[in-house]
């Protein structure tokens, strides 16, 4: 037989195969004998030893799950707590006529047939002396009803368990997160000894990020059992250690201001304490009620949440990526000052459009007739696009990228929540790698007004604003202030801010221009200045959802709501001694100045009011 690599020799092959089968068989016999030897060792030599161990094998270890730590806001209000829930459980072997008992209970407590069926199924799986639940989450009424007739139902009892509750519901759902039943996959990753008696685990938010701290240390009970595995008495008990309580920097009052401020929009608001990096507000609207997840949300409810157009399960503050629009201008302006590309007072004429040499393409300003002659102060105040088109071309994408990177754009802020995303800060390398294309000058131009590829998350914007307000010292936002365990308290976020080494005068100039956005004569967020006794520095932004063609006019009323621009606003206040930095995004809100800025203003007002001596005179 001819093959590619030589000649087959069937006779030789057959001989080899036969010899190999014999070899394999010998190996098998040897290994099997090995097993038998081991069995003889265990069952004859070791029999007495193991029989004694078996007889003594009456001590069972029953896990005692720890109580989960409580989550508080900065003022000590409970965001996640443990409430007792009542379960009606039956011990089948103590009930003589179980069917009759079930019938009576069904009548008494109005129990559905499905639940009876489920109980019967579970009963068959359990041992006769194991309490098996029939009805969960009994109301106080039902408990009272049953208590009256309890003597007539031997073997039936109400058991109390602690269940996780989130009293503020959707308000802080994305921050606090929720616990739910441990999945098989999670079980593998968790320390088995600690979770033997626990059936819930943090799935998202603080509940997940701080799972190790919140969970606590499991205890156990050594129980002596008789030959039927029935518990006789407890030999020893090691008490569980409750999980640590967690105090957030979040303020429920401010969170409410932000969440209600966003009521007409989907969006997010993040506010950061500039001095500490503590997150005061972390709102993502719409939220969802985390409570059903604890006991197991129904597939239908879950699908409704998942399929909703408003995406309530989506943490916009952490994971929403939006073009920063004009909110990027103060940072790009600062970049130009730092690189010496221009100075603060150097004017530029804005005719309403920008054109590259030898090109017909017009990059338009939002103001059709132009801003006339503007310097950086006026360009930020009135949000002149042409000024920043020119600045971007003068700086080039490489410098812009390097400087914005320092402020944390395009990378995670490091906030203590799982699931943060990077956002996107474009660069030549990025485009070559992911878009397989060279960088075009036109892309530099639109990056100059925070459009194009650039994408930032609300928490990134808040962090960048806080860094600016902090005189260029970078902070890492954090939600947890302290973790209070049984014997110790850990403070999170006690960190030395990292200085970016910026020129102080440049930073001051930019903040002055941002102050003019709110308090200046033609600032784009002028309405904020009314009725406040301190100064706010801010910047409005509008993020394009779709692009208008060259000769078309963007007509807000004529287009569909879903196509309308996102409204953005970043702010810091008070200017004299910055304490709070805020970023607000209202999806499809249109103008940053009219929609997003008032929400930021309300948050700042509420925060400064709550601070002692927080009223800054003008």
């Amino acid at each position, binding site marked *: 037989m001819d*093959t*590619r*690599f*030589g*000649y*087959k*020799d069937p006779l*030789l*092959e*057959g001989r*080899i*195969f*036969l010899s*190999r*089968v014999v070899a*394999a*068989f010998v190996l*098998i*016999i040897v*290994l*099997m004998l*090995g*097993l*038998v030897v*081991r*069995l*003889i060792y*265990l*069952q*004859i030599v*070791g*029999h007495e*030893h*193991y*029989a004694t*161990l*078996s007889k003594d*094998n009456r001590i*069972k*270890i029953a896990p005692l799950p720890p109580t989960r730590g409580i989550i508080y806001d900065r003022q000590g209000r409970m965001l996640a707590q443990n409430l007792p829930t009542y379960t009606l459980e039956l011990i089948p072997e103590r009930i003589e006529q179980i069917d009759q008992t079930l019938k009576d209970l069904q009548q008494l407590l109005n129990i559905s047939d499905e639940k009876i069926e489920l109980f019967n199924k579970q009963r*068959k*799986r359990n*041992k006769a002396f194991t309490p098996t639940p029939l009805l969960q989450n009994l109301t106080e009424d039902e408990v009272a009803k049953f208590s009256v007739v309890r003597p007539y139902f031997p073997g039936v009892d109400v058991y109390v368990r602690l269940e996780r509750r989130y009293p503020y519901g959707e308000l802080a759902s994305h921050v606090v997160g929720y616990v739910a039943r441990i*999945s098989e*996959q*999670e079980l*593998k*990753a968790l320390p*088995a*000894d600690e979770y033997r008696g626990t059936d819930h685990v943090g799935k998202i938010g603080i509940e997940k990020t701080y799972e190790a701290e919140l969970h606590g240390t499991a205890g156990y009970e050594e129980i002596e*059992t008789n*030959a*039927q*595995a029935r518990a006789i008495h407890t030999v020893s008990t090691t008490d569980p250690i409750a999980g640590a309580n967690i105090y957030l920097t979040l303020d429920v009052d401010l969170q409410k201001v932000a969440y209600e401020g966003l009521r007409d929009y989907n969006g997010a608001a993040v506010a950061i304490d500039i001095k500490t990096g503590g997150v005061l507000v972390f709102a993502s609207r719409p939220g969802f009620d985390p409570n059903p997840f604890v006991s197991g949300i129904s597939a239908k409810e879950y699908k409704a949440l998942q399929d909703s157009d408003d995406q309530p399960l989506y943490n916009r503050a952490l994971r929403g990526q939006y073009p920063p629009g004009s909110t990027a201008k103060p940072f790009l302006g600062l970049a130009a000052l730092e690189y010496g590309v221009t100075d603060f007072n150097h004017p530029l004429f804005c005719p309403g459009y920008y054109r590259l040499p030898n090109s017909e393409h017009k990059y338009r300003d939002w103001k059709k007739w132009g801003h006339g002659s503007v310097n950086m102060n006026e360009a930020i105040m009135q949000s002149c696009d042409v000024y920043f088109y020119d600045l971007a071309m003068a700086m080039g994408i490489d410098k812009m990228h390097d400087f914005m990177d320092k402020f944390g754009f395009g990378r995670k802020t490091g906030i203590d929540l799982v699931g943060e995303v990077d956002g996107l800060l474009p660069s030549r390398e990025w485009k070559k790698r992911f878009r397989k294309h060279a960088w075009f000058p036109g892309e530099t131009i639109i990056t100059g007004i925070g459009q194009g590829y650039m994408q930032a998350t609300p928490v990134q914007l808040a962090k960048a604003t806080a860094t600016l307000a902090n005189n260029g010292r970078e902070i890492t936002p954090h939600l947890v202030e302290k973790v209070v365990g049984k014997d110790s308290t850990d403070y999170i976020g006690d960190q030395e801010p990292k200085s970016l080494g910026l020129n102080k005068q440049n930073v001051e100039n930019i903040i002055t221009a941002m102050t003019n956005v709110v308090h200046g004569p033609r600032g784009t967020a002028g309405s904020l200045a009314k009725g406040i006794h301190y100064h706010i520095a801010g910047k409005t932004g509008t993020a394009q959802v779709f692009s208008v063609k060259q000769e078309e006019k963007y007509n807000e009323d004529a287009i569909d709501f879903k196509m309308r621009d996102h409204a953005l606003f970043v702010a810091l206040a008070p200017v004299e001694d910055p304490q709070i930095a805020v970023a607000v995004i209202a999806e499809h809100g249109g103008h940053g100045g009219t929609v997003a800025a008032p929400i930021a203003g309300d948050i700042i007002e509420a925060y400064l009011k709550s601070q002692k001596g927080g009223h800054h005179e003008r």
Partner: protein
Amino acid sequence: MKDNRAEAFDSPSLLGNLLRRLHVDIPLFLGLLMIGGLSFVILYSAGGQEMQVLIRHASRMGFAIALMILLAHINPKQLQTLSPLFFAGCVLLLIAVAVMGQIGKGAQRWLDLGVFRFQPSEFTKLSAPMMVAWYLAEQSLPPKAKHVGIAGALLLVPVLLIAKQPDLGTAILVASSGAAVLFFAGLSWWFMAGCGVIGVALLPVLWHFMHDYQKKRVLTFINPEADPMGAGYHIIQSKIAIGSGGINGRGWLGSSQAELDFLPESSTDFIFAVFAEEFGLFGCVSLLVLYLLVIMRCFYIAVQAHDTFNRLLAGSLSFTFFVYVFVNIGMVIGVLPVVGVPLPLVSYGGTSMVTLMAGFGILMSIHTHGKKHPV
């Protein structure tokens, strides 16, 4: 031809005749039925005397037998032709599972097809030896170093994908089934010795790549007493159960350890411990003999086969069956680390039984298609 036919109709057993027509190899089938029958006896006791468990076990076994008969019908020539396709499909599915596992961020072995979920790694237990046998059948044997290298590389792809899932037990079975083909093809003894030396030298590297829980299992295997309430619990309890069985055992339903819930996984991976406690050394040795008889019949089929592909595949399937038995019992009696391999045909749980019976179906096909048969 005519004589054969007459003989078949003259055979005293109508059932035997029917089985022969179904391409079922009767001695092998009888052996499997005996082990299968025994599995019900053990499961009834280990599973808490629950009819529900037996019914599910029976339905799985029924399905597995049906699959076996189906495969016994397919001509091994066709199996040979389809081998590369089958193998490629398995590798693609394994990659799909790995990708989805990446997305799901956790151990992922299942592919969800909406209607049913399955483990592609199970199929690989068959497709890997088929592929290697298909490849070597094309070469002149004994295999040259180059062919061994190619076969090894082919094998490494699914093995690494499965080990990554992470499912060490299945990875070992797949690797050994492929290695067995090479062995039966006449892999040089020197080469094997060399591999052994290199393997031992590479152990520290393997250790580095193991998951924490896998490391823990190995450490626990070396010294179970170090963690009696955690990872060593399985092995300690298992040894107690086996040892307390003695020579004669405590009798059926007499297993105190499983009954009292001391022995974990008593109806799946650790079912042998229950059996050993109830039926003692006599029972254990009898079960081993039963397995040995099945393996002997499989080897007989392998030797009877004349085509290279058939021979290699049959040899590998037979040997892999033994590896199953050895790894499971070895782990339960504490001479091998715990690697999640079920006791073949006895442990509760569907997938492994289905693959095993499919393997026996292939063996029967090799045997019954190899010789002249009444049609």
